[in-house]
């Protein structure tokens, strides 16, 4: 269903993104040279190039040096690890971004573990995920953190809030659940084996959807006044749509993030904020002065 792009109930990412980026730019301006972000892509994958361009543009806007490395498609796992190790040891490298997907012969999880947690600006190292589980949520996977930031933007008190997360992926659903729980929400995680997602989503004050099914969530699945955070990005004949039927839900919900223009724009801002957190932690650990 189509909707008025100016509807005030749309929870837009742009202002949140701008606020975060202003903070980051302020930090960089104050601290001067804090090292560079290194983006690594392996092989030639067209969709990765789009991400990298976007990240590079945003990094430039906040004056964070952004270096792009493209490793050959036939590089070995061990060679990747050795190169990451060198970056861990290089004080000029502030943070490392490992672009996905990678070629089939590369074990991406093992490489993510090889990035030192203090340089893990994507929040993908198991130690980073473990910290989130243990309520240290400052450096979280970017998409999950962006979703939480948008929930916060509503100004609702998190304590006691009923949250339903649809999708239990390792990089979005689970960390979102843990982060909102850390703030006092009662969180239920639903997924493909859940008997009735509607039974849960209908009682939720906040619904966060990250499954990758176009328009899975319709108006009959939402409680009036709820916050609906749509993380899905689905390519359809009508263009890019989210997991939520935004137009249908808009009449009922209190806030809905549009797709595109909701969570997406905040995600890359979080990446930059993570870089600042990484810098602060490297200083605290005595790596940098």
């Amino acid at each position, binding site marked *: 269903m189509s909707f008025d792009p100016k509807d005030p109930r749309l929870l837009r990412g742009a202002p949140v993104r701008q606020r975060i980026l202003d903070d980051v730019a302020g930090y960089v301006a104050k601290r001067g040279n804090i090292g560079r972000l290194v983006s690594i892509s392996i092989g030639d994958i067209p969709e990765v190039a789009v991400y990298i361009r976007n990240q590079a543009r945003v990094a430039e806007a906040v004056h964070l040096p952004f270096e792009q490395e493209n490793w050959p498609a036939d590089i070995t796992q061990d060679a990747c690890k050795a190169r990451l190790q060198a970056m861990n040891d290089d004080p000029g490298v502030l943070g490392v971004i490992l672009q996905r997907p990678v070629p089939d012969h590369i074990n991406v*999880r093992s490489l993510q573990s090889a990035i030192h947690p203090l340089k893990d600006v994507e929040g993908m*190292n*198991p*130690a*980073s*995920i*473990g*910290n*989130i*589980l*243990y*309520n240290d949520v400052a450096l979280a996977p970017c998409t999950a953190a962006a979703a939480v930031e948008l929930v916060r933007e509503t100004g609702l008190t998190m*304590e*006691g809030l*009923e949250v339903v997360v649809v999708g*239990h992926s*390792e990089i979005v659903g*689970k*960390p979102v*659940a*843990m982060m909102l*729980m850390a703030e*006092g*929400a*009662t*969180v*239920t*995680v*639903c*997924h*493909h*084996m*859940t*008997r009735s997602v509607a039974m*849960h989503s209908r009682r939720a004050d906040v619904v966060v959807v990250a499954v990758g099914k176009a328009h899975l969530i319709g108006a009959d699945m939402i409680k009036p006044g709820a916050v609906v955070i749509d993380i899905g990005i689905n390519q359809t004949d009508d263009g890019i749509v989210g997991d939520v039927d935004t137009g249908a839900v808009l009449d009922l919900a209190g806030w809905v993030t549009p797709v595109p223009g909701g969570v997406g724009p905040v995600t890359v801002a979080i990446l930059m904020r993570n870089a600042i957190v990484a810098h602060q932690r490297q200083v605290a650990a005595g790596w940098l002065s």
Partner: protein
Amino acid sequence: MSAAVIDGKAFAASVRGQIANHVARLKGENGLTPGLAVILVGEDPASEVYVAAKHKQTVEVGMASFEHRLPADVPEADLFALIDQLNADPTVHGILCQFPVPDHLKERDVVARIDPAKDVDGLSVVNAGLLASGETGLVSCTPLGCLMLLRDQLGSMSGKEAVVIGRSNLFGKPMGQLLLQENCTVTIAHSRTADLADVCRRADILVAAVGRAEMVKGDWIKPGATVIDVGITRIPHPEKPGKTKLLGDVAYAEAVEVARAVTPVPGGVGPMTIACLLANTLTACCRAHGLEAPKGLTA
């Protein structure tokens, strides 16, 4: 209707029996003896009891048990030096530092010092992260014990509604992760939850871990649910002066009227914890030597 009592004591004994068989096989076929090192700092009486129980059961399943006692005022550096030495020791596959430790030591730093591959308590951030990432790590013992009991009771848990009460790092959060891995729909409820009774009532699997005696009433339980009670509260014994009694988080007498199966306190989850510590030590030993870890003893 009267619920089945989940006999954790008997089940833990059967788990230890399986472990003993695997240990005998490792010794015979691979010349390996799994080893568990326990560090005790200071002289906490309760810790003494736990450590003695762990030692006894470790030896009973045929594993090597190493005990290291350090004075209460041991400098952090000395404790870390011992952990480093155990990390490097190929005869030690599991390392556990008995908590609580004296105030000048930070539990989190102590756990972080232990090699994650030997962190048989499964408490390090790396193991917590591996669990949350759906990867191979070591899982905290009490949640692992509850998972084994649930698997034994229910077989597949896919699609079931699970509610965990309590969001502690030690139990609630890893338990929630394990139930998600089993494809349950999982709610983690806690002290800030608006209507706890209502949340509990939808659970096919209800796991209580808050430490408030008999908080979960019979009418909080969905008929036919499986109830796992992790809470332990010690109260003065109502009939025997000078004696104490243990109570769980669930009003047991009421729960048995409604549930399909319930763990008692004591004798339910409790005995599983050490059994799972041994299971983790066995698993760590197998992995350290590139052998497949035995099935059914890990998450």
